[in-house]
């Protein structure tokens, strides 16, 4: 074969010959192979996704400095003080608010959005066949490609972040540097950075993994949601199922950090906020071993996601581009888990809509229907074809069967949860928490304590905030056994229904009180809810919610000192004297403000009277009385050394607070009748003739 037009026949210049010779040399005899440098690949990759860098830069560079200027100018204009100490404190407060209140939160949001965009956008060639062909045909190892794209994505977030923070710190230094706030500002910046970093890395690695297993952007987003949330959603589903279908289910609320570590979207954002906001307040979060372990697990999951994403990327078939989702096993697990979750969640909805009668049949039917629906929908998404709905009919039926089995476990208590009672000899410690039915009786809701050496100031009871026994009262074993026995009685009554008659004998008078099945309602006086926890000698802790079919037992529990103190710290005087106490009438008007001396005398009387009444009557002291008027007690709630806020607590005075009422009448000259503005007759309410002008 000959060339149609031999180059030798063409008139060529010397320069062209030189050029051709050069080209020849370049083509045939590469003197020394330089290879493709990592840096040049990074630059090349960056060139083709400049828009991501520009977007990140605009958002970060505008937002950070803008918020800084806004916050600092707001604080400067709010206070006009000359006291240098106050000025320094305000400056520090401004810095704290800037980083914790605004930048910390904004940076977490930016980190989530940024990680999503650079994660899925960076690996966009996986969603385009011709781009995949191009990327895979060039002489670069896939591992190197992955590293280039991954690192570029990270830098696209990090560099604008750092520049933005540098500008922010410069602005802070310019405005408040003279107050010596820079060490605080720098510490706050580190906290913000740590929070944003963990959020970004968790979401970024998840996004990269989702992209690696997907053939389209839509599939990536679906996979990201499933991988990022499924574990937490599944856990929540089991908890909700237990709460809705088991009569006795209860367990103390778990911190989201403790359950969310398997779900990167949950844990990354939560930890991001916690670290950015509270890392320095170690007493709140990071002295709890479980929280630290969960943080370590979150980081471990983040790293595992990256490793798995890398492995999938380097072994991924090029033909996966533009297909739905890759990996037969993963696709099956995704369909299996999510279809069951959909079915079970809808069953929960049905139970709540239908109520307690006849829900079993409908729950089972609806679970089957929605499991099939979700299975088919996921199949369509994964295969990008509507015809794929019934592609795996065997797996679909399997999912329905497993979903029905799980539902049946809760519907019919197949694991004997409700009837199981911990054996007496296996109880090490026992705790109870009564249902807070009576909280409206002036209760503070628990969780407060007085601040030492600062009368009128209160704070959260941090011990209880992180305790496993939040709000619980330790009870003697004998009482625990009685509670368990009462549960057995309740179970018998519940089974017997309205035809059951039950007698309780007063040990002193010998009189018998008769109860029937119709009394089996909370608030009827017969039944009270109690949350019961037993630390077992062997085995996990035992948590149940019981209805006590024994008013005497309820009363006895309520009379425990610890129960009283935890639930009524204000009424018992445990919060100390309020900063101010005011008297309020029926209209809600504040009609009298007590002097400090009067306040002390009044509160002493009230505390003393409450405790005595309580000792005699237990929680019955709070029951059945209609308040006539109330006292408003003002405390200052301390959040940290700098910030406080005003809290008002209400004490509702009742008929049996006779000494307190008499003292109020004596101190104010106002009688109870004068305070009651509303009365009722057969025609409704009418206004009383008395009216006291608000002071």
């Amino acid at each position: 074969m000959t060339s149609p037009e031999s180059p030798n026949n063409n008139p060529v210049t010397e320069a062209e010959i030189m050029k051709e010779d050069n080209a020849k040399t370049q083509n045939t005899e590469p003197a020394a192979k330089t290879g493709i440098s990592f840096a040049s690949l990074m630059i090349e990759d960056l060139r083709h996704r400049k828009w991501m860098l520009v977007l990140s830069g605009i958002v970060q560079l505008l937002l950070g400095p803008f918020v800084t200027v806004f916050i600092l100018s707001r604080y400067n204009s709010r206070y006009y003080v000359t006291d240098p100490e106050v000025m320094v404190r305000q400056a520090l407060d401004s810095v704290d608010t800037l980083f914790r209140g605004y930048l910390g939160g904004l940076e977490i949001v930016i980190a989530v959005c940024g990680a999503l965009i650079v994660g899925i956008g960076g690996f966009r060639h996986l969603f385009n066949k011709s781009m995949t062909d191009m990327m895979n045909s060039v002489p670069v190892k896939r591992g190197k490609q992955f590293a280039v794209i991954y690192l570029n994505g990270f830098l696209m977030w990090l560099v604008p972040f750092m520049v933005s923070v540098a500008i922010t710190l410069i602005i802070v230094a310019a405005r408040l540097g003279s107050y010596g706030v820079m060490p605080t500002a720098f510490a706050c910046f580190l906290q913000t950075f740590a929070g944003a970093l963990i959020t970004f890395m968790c979401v970024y690695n998840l996004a990269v993994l989702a992209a690696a297993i997907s053939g389209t952007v839509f599939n990536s987003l679906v996979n990201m949601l499933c991988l990022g949330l499924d574990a937490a959603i599944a856990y929540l589903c089991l908890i909700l199922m237990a709460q809705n279908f088991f009569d006795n289910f209860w367990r103390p609320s778990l911190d989201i950090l403790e359950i969310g570590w398997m779900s990167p979207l949950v844990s990354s954002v939560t930890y991001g906020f916690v670290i950015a906001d509270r890392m320095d307040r170690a007493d709140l979060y990071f002295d709890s071993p479980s929280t630290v372990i969960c943080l370590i697990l979150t980081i471990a999951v983040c790293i595992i996601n990256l490793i798995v994403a890398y492995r999938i990327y380097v072994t991924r078939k090029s033909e996966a581009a533009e297909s739905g989702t890759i990996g037969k096993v993963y696709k099956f697990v995704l369909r299996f888990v999510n279809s069951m979750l959909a079915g079970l969640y809808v069953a929960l909805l049905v139970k709540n809509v239908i109520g307690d009668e006849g829900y079993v049949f409908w729950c089972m039917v609806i679970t089957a229907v929605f499991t099939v629906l979700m299975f088919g929908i996921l199949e369509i998404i994964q295969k990008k074809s509507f015809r794929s709905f019934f592609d795996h009919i065997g797996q679909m039926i399997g999912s329905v069967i497993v979903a029905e089995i799980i539902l049946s476990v809760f519907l019919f208590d197949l694991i004997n949860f409700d009837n199981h009672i911990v054996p007496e000899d296996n109880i090490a410690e026992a705790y109870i928490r009564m249902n807070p039915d009576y909280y409206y009786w002036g209760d503070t809701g628990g969780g407060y304590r007085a601040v030492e050496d600062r009368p009128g100031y209160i704070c959260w009871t941090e011990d209880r905030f992180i305790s496993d026994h939040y709000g619980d009262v330790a009870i003697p074993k004998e009482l625990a056994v009685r509670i368990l026995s009462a549960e057995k009685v309740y179970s018998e009554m519940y089974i017997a229904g309205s035809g059951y008659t039950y007698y309780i004998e007063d040990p002193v008078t010998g009189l018998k009180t008769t109860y029937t099945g119709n009394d089996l309602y909370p608030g009827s006086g017969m039944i009270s809810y109690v949350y019961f926890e037993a630390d077992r000698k062997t085995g996990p802790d035992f948590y149940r919610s019981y209805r006590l079919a024994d008013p005497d037992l309820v009363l006895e529990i309520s009379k425990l000192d610890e129960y009283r103190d935890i639930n009524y710290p204000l009424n018992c005087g445990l919060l100390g004297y309020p900063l101010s106490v005011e008297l309020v009438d029926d209209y809600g008007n504040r009609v009298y403000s007590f002097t400090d001396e009067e306040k002390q005398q009044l509160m002493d009387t009230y505390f003393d009277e409450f405790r005595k009444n309580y000792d005699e009557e237990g929680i019955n002291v709070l029951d059945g009385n209609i308040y006539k008027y109330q006292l408003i007690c003002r405390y200052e709630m301390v959040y940290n050394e700098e910030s406080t806020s005003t809290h008002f607590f209400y004490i509702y005075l009742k008929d049996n607070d006779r000494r307190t009422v008499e003292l109020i009448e004596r101190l104010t000259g106002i009688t109870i009748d004068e305070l009651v503005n509303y009365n009722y007759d057969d025609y409704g309410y009418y206004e009383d003739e008395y009216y006291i002008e608000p002071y």
Partner: protein
Amino acid sequence: MIEIKNVSKKYDDVNALSGVTIEVPEGQVFGLVGTNGAGKSTLLRSICGVCRPDEGEILVDGEPVYENPSAKQKIFFISDDQYYYPGSNAEEMERFYRTMYPDTFSSDRFHDLMKSLSLDPKRRIQTFSKGMKKQLAIMLGIASGCKYILCDETFDGLDPVVRQAVKRLFIHDMEEFGITPVIASHNLRELEDICEYVGLLHKGGVILSKDLEDMKLGIYKVQVVFRDSTSLETVRNNLKVISEEHRGSLVTLTIRGGRTEVETVITSQVPVFYEVLPLTLEEIFISETEVLGYDFTGITK
């Protein structure tokens, strides 16, 4: 040399390639022809390391190609739907490939070629016609300085003038730099002009792979008028007749074998008239695939 040894590749349950064994010799234009879905694109994508074969191996100058930058440095793949970054122009793509082939890419060559084809390197590629995009891909491939240029349906969409220019370019570079273009196409007439070596694929397997001239020498079309029907029977019995067509007394036979052998048997029957003609690549392709049942002549019945 590219050695494809017993390569198989499946897409789900479909066999795209099944035990393919071909050698692509250096310094020649290798034509890859095949029926629709024969696996031409899959084979090219496997040769350049885009796909990993399920079985077998592909060696480029003795090195395995998959995940091997050293071997891939010698290959430039022009797909039938070449990717260009959105919003990019030719210069930006040139920069991309210059980064990917730093040791061999010649920017001067690229710009010269662009100039000679009157393509504006600063114009956005998305405003290019289909043919211009193909031209650009070929220019990038040639400028890459790669030893092997794999072209998947590259000539489709090129106008005849550019097609000839590209052919000249390939031949020039083959002679000057020893490049080896591997061209997959349906347009057999185009391939016939340029290819020296041909591989025929059908249903993921190789029907034959040999020098085009040898191929043409091994198969002939004979137009003959016999005196009686026994002559035709004798020819059938003594030669490998692939197909025959009757128009009145004129019989057209496609016969596999050497020219001398064919002529000897035909003349021994003392025909009224006979003529031995070489087959075109297209006729060879049709004959060979017909034998394997790839025949749609009954479509109009």
